[in-house]
């Protein structure tokens, strides 16, 4: 038990994780490229045309994975932040920091693709639907995290302050989600609704899942690459980084 703990803490050191991050990054890049390629092929050539929405529905194959990833990444970030606050490990804070821009990007993509779907389906670029609104708020939470980090110069202080924000945020996300739901259903008069397709075609579902897994692998790959840069920047006065720098150039 004790030795396993020690092992974990060994990997929580940036120096030991640095080469490992590269390996994880390479593997997940390969997986991401493969899955997204297959997913795109299925989205356009295997999945049948929707009888109601025609070809327009194909947006779903980027829209839904992006939406899911944006929500998932925020929770993961909060998890890292909690670890970082409890064990005072820099690496987990950097993990959270490395994920944030990707999460924000997916939140933005969810909004963007949603709008590009909404225009032909509903005739408006934007409606104040519950899910849409809470996605927008999620984007604000990401931006708030990044803005707070960039407003604090000392990285160790930024770590702890932004971790507190993440934890407060993650407590609030479900509250926000349900309150928005309630707000919307209580006085939503119009007929506009996201269509809950229970009768989704199997190939559609599979394509969507494959795309989601691809996005997932992509997130890991990008986060690892960003993490490596962050480690180098933050640990630049550490001996191993200096050696690396004078060797590698």
């Amino acid at each position: 038990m004790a030795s396993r703990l020690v092992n974990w803490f060994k990997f929580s050191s940036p120096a030991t994780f640095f080469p490992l991050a590269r390996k994880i990054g390479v593997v997940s890049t390969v997986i991401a490229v493969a899955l997204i390629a297959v997913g795109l092929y299925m989205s356009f050539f295997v999945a049948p045309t929707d009888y109601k929405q025609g070809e327009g529905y194909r947006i779903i194959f980027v829209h839904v994975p992006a939406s899911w990833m944006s929500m998932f990444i925020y929770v993961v970030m909060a998890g890292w932040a909690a670890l970082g606050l409890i064990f005072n490990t820099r690496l987990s804070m950097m993990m959270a920091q490395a994920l944030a821009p990707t999460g924000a990007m997916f939140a933005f993509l969810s909004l963007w693709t949603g709008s590009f779907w909404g225009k032909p389906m509903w005739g408006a670029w934007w409606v104040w639907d519950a899910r849409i609104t809470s996605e927008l708020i999620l984007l604000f939470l990401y931006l708030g995290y990044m803005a707070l980090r960039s407003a604090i110069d000392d990285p160790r202080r930024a770590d702890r302050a932004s971790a507190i924000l993440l934890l407060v945020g993650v407590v609030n996300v479900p509250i926000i989600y349900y309150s928005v739901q309630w707000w919307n259903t209580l006085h939503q008069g119009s007929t506009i609704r996201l269509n809950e397709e229970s009768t989704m075609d199997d190939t559609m579902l599979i394509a969507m899942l494959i795309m989601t897994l691809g996005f997932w692998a992509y997130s890991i790959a990008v986060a690892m690459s960003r993490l490596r840069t962050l480690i180098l920047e933050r640990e630049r006065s550490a001996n191993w980084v200096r050696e690396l720098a004078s060797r590698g150039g």
Partner: protein
Amino acid sequence: MSTGSTDPALRIDALSCVRGDRMLFRDLDFDLDAGELLHLKGENGSGKTTLLRALAGLLLPESGEIRWRGADIRRLREEYSRHLLYLGHLNGIKGDLTAVENLRITAVLDGFRLTESRAWEVLGKIGLRGHEDLPSKHLSQGQKRRVALARLLVNRASLWILDEPFTALDVAAVQLLQEVIRRHVDNGGLAVVTTHQAVAMIGEQTRSITLGSRA
């Protein structure tokens, strides 16, 4: 790591502090015992303030430990605060409150009560007679510093951490303050003090540490 009964009151162990890229000091060790005064020296920017803030527990050091009577101060928290009086570059007084009010509220937060008349008395002693009930924002630089220092006359903390306490004070006040610190140490208190002024901090109990020049 020893937690025996012979622990010094304050033990600093392999302490290192980093600000930005700069390692201000590395592996600093020293002990301070009851009845000792530590005069911390060093040129501008050598890390005195940083060290004092770490000692007070306001700042997380990069590595190393600070122990109060054998226990890590990060663990003790409020328990440590009970024994501590820290006075930094800032005075820590509210400009909208009078000197009397400032002194009394600090006392309550430090965990004891101070009657109004006692507060007036102490402020008179420190040379603020006639200014006790002026909002402190109107006071002069040196008078504000005196309000902050008035805490020293009523406090029961055993460890005093004073960062440049003599700035802005005139000659009479400097003398008074020296006297107060000496008395505290003679009565078995501990003090860590920085000052650039050529102030005599005499007494056989005075030790001094000089922080290295900029790394």
